């Protein structure tokens, strides 16, 4: 996989993950182009399209679009299920993917890294991915000390 983009129905980018080196300018250009292309497609259309020399696989969940760019030899259907498995993982951690729309953007990246690395599937077992995230959460709870609300908002 060359990259994955998550964006909202209104075209706001929520997550971007690039597995090939590209300049910021190029990334922005690609994002703009793909967001427009994918949002312009009608619901019943197929989930795959040819784009430059890549294949785009996308799927919509509620108001979020998940969009992956894969290479010519890669398997489209299994990529659709990569998206679905990622959504399941996010759901498990957040309760609902819609929350990604609001907070926890950093967490979405951490989960993705446990699942996909360098553009390849690293671990497909939901249990194992969640275990890794859970361990992280535990480690963190040990480390945190309670703080006052004022301090957290940055008012002190």
């Amino acid at each position, binding site marked *: 996989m060359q990259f994955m983009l998550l964006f909202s129905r209104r075209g706001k980018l929520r997550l971007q993950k690039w597995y090939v080196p590209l300049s910021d300018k190029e990334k922005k250009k690609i994002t703009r182009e793909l967001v427009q292309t994918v949002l312009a497609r009608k619901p019943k259309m*197929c989930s795959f399209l040819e784009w430059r020399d890549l294949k785009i696989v996308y799927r919509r969940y509620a108001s979020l679009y998940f969009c992956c760019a894969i290479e010519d030899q890669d398997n489209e259907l299994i990529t659709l299920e990569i998206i679905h498995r990622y959504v399941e993982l996010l759901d498990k951690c957040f309760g609902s993917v819609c929350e990604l729309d609001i907070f926890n953007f950093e967490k979405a990246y*951490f989960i993705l890294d446990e699942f996909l690395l360098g553009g390849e599937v690293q671990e*497909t077992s939901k249990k194992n991915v969640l275990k890794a995230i859970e361990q992280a959460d535990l480690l963190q709870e040990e480390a945190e000390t309670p703080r006052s609300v004022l301090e957290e908002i940055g008012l002190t």
Partner: protein
Amino acid sequence: MPAVSKGDGMRGLAVFISDIRNCKSKEAEIKRINKELANIRSKFKGDKALDGYSKKKYVCKLLFIFLLGHDIDFGHMEAVNLLSSNKYTEKQIGYLFISVLVNSNSELIRLINNAIKNDLASRNPTFMCLALHCIANVGSREMGEAFAADIPRILVAGDSMDSVKQSAALCLLRLYKASPDLVPMGEWTARVVHLLNDQHMGVVTAAVSLITCLCKKNPDDFKTCISLAVSRLSRIVSSASTDLQDYTYYFVPAPWLSVKLLRLLQCYPPPEDAAVKGRLVESLETVLNKAQEPPKSKKVQHSNAKNAILFETISLIIHYDSEPNLLVRACNQLGQFLQHRETNLRYLALESMCTLASSEFSHEAVKTHIDTVINALKTERDVSVRQRAADLLYAMCDRSNAKQIVSEMLRYLETADYAIREEIVLKVAILAEKYAVDYSWYVDTILNLIRIAGDYVSEEVWYRVLQIVTNRDDVQGYAAKTVFEALQAPACHENMVKVGGYILGEFGNLIAGDPRSSPPVQFSLLHSKFHLCSVATRALLLSTYIKFINLFPETKATIQGVLRAGSQLRNADVELQQRAVEYLTLSSVASTDVLATVLEEMPPFPERESSILAKLKRKKGPGAASALDDGRRDASSSDINGAVEPTPSTVSTPSPSADLLGLRAAPPPAAAPAPASAGNLLVDVFSDGPAAQPSLGPTPEEAFLSELEPPAPESPMALLADPAPAADPGPEDIGPPVPEADELLNKFVCKNNGVLFENQLLQIGVKSEFRQNLGRMYLFYGNKTSVQFQNFLPTVVHPGDLQTQLAVQTKRVAAQVDGGAQVQQVLNIECLRDFLTPPLLSVRFRYGGAPQSLTLKLPVTINKFFQPTEMAAQDFFQRWKQLSLPLQEAQKIFKANHPMDAEVTKAKLLGFGSALLDNVDPNPENFVGAGIIQTKALQVGCLLRLEPNAQAQMYRLTLRTSKESVSRHLCELLAQQF
């Protein structure tokens, strides 16, 4: 499983994010962000040392701001500090920031690498994984240099945790892809292969990806993976749906791993070992069998996962191309999918069947689905699926079904989406040529193409029909009769006029006996189209006329009258004027014998690969046309097209037309007969190859033409042409443009003449004119000093893709420019297709012994090829509506940089090239314009509207064109002018 755990909250971050999401406007968002940035900056600069938590929170905010698309230029140091924290979440945020925002600040890289090194050595698997993720995410060469040698060790170490192995495998894969030279092969490779046997499915999943990548470059080193992969695969496909526990996905055992294993096997030929092969074939059969079983779940995830394995299995079967039984089964399976209710499956089935069509074992089986595929072409609602259907029809075409397929594709063309018309045209042209049984069918098909989709018929296509007609005398009479009939249509496409003009000029005599198509009738038919045509077509028609004088002496007086008319003899276009003058003289002074020799029928074209096929390959990338090339090995290909030989040079051919007539490969004529064959008169319009020799007195243009391809030394052209191109600087060794280059360029967007550049030594003036897709520019280099410039060398360089978009031919100027003197350089410019960046002009010389060099942007922008179009309000609005896709429109709202004077604005818009339309916009303050950008490959219709708001001192500019990039580019160019 708890939802987001409680300790996680960075409340300040949450508040900030929700503030941003609630912003009503872009401005409000930017304001909020700037406030936050100022706050973070002051925290980072403050005297109070920040604790880890605050640092984490602020770094995370910066990251969020960056991901919103804003630039971040600080905070890197704080992020690096977080890496050495021993709190997991702080470290984690630090790594995330580094992965997303790393730049090659060498000081920082050293610190980052240090932190990574510590974590890798920490033996804490969680920290090790974080470090490995970071390396994999950044994947830079610097990281490779620092860690590529360590990671294989971690990967195969006996005591590494499974999760660390997984991350190490994929981290190594990423580094190997980025810089393979940095990853040393060694004894670890054998142990990596054995990870395929690992107990932990996750480790196997990660390792297969790595092995698949490594074995492509070192197939022999990894050969042992075949049998291991086969046994792993066989165990998975034969396992029950619950055996693999959490690696079962919606009742499908390990779908990701299965797909990866099948991919790995596609790196190798079928297994040699009979037992391994038997086991593999059995597994493949199992997959095919399972496809026929009822689904275990109604969920789409189940069917997708199952079918993902099935499609990958079919890919492997096609890759082996050796098991007729499996191939036919695969084809039947895909046949079922062709009518599946899931669009995705129909799409994939069409795509997969395309490759099956090229196997000799399954070609016939694929053909049985022709009706379904034709139906898909007609009824699919998604254009990408229709595209696949068209591809498949192309791939399954052979002599037996060519007529049916070609006629279906022609029918489809009438309603096809604009985006794919050109490709369909190419495909039809290729099929018609390849499988023509009789040439009249071929000629009819191509003329139909021009009639239905004339705009999309590229030169390659109509050149090719001329080549074939010229080479086959049994079709010439039919061709002449058919084009004569086609030209009777009141509105016929210009490409039809070109083909008709050429064919009647060569073979009009074959139908001249019929009084309905007598010579005067042929001439007046052609001439009735003359005034509506572009310069190139008119030039071609003039050549047809001189050929008529030779073929039909009775038309001589009429034609001489046409040539003699002031509109020809004094035509402002030098090409037309030159032809008129020369042809008129030739027809008056040359004896009939000389005339007959000069204007003899064109010699046959050398048989080479169809240039259309080459074009399709260029369009679709290598391998796209292979279905025709290597797929069909029947002997039927030769009789019409000649031997199909691959041309390795297709990609580097500078202009698509250059190679077309096969002239490039032909050696230059040893002694060109004088005067040269009249064919060249005609050819030189199209061809920029060396064979476009000056026929009747060389003109400067023709000398320039030769520059695109260095002529062979013995060619007489060598004297006229530039020295070998090696002397010219390539794009890499000229300097960057001077800082003010863009500003200077902007000055010339709306005007053609003026001083381009001036410093103490040198003044460069420009005079240029443009018509259609052609332009001529005079550059005047003035030496402002009293000392001679030496080695004076101005060159034009095409950066990037520009070479295929714009042809600029220059003539060398004298290498010395005396003090106070001025030299002139002529540039001939041809716009081949739309382009975004202007060519660069590099000027180098020595002044008083010191080398001087200077790079400017040549004032050639796409709007120079504007042809103004007048139209009424109604037409304008209709077209405006037709261009209503979001991509077709570009809009800019900007502040006026100059006083808002309506007359000045008008002048600028006219200078920009569009027509100004009055009484179109209901608001008389607004400006509305229309025009067509003329390029050799395509025309782009453009509409524009400029709305000044004097009160606010603002403008709103809207461009609509049929091409997204053109809209944007024109909008940018024009917005800078007011």
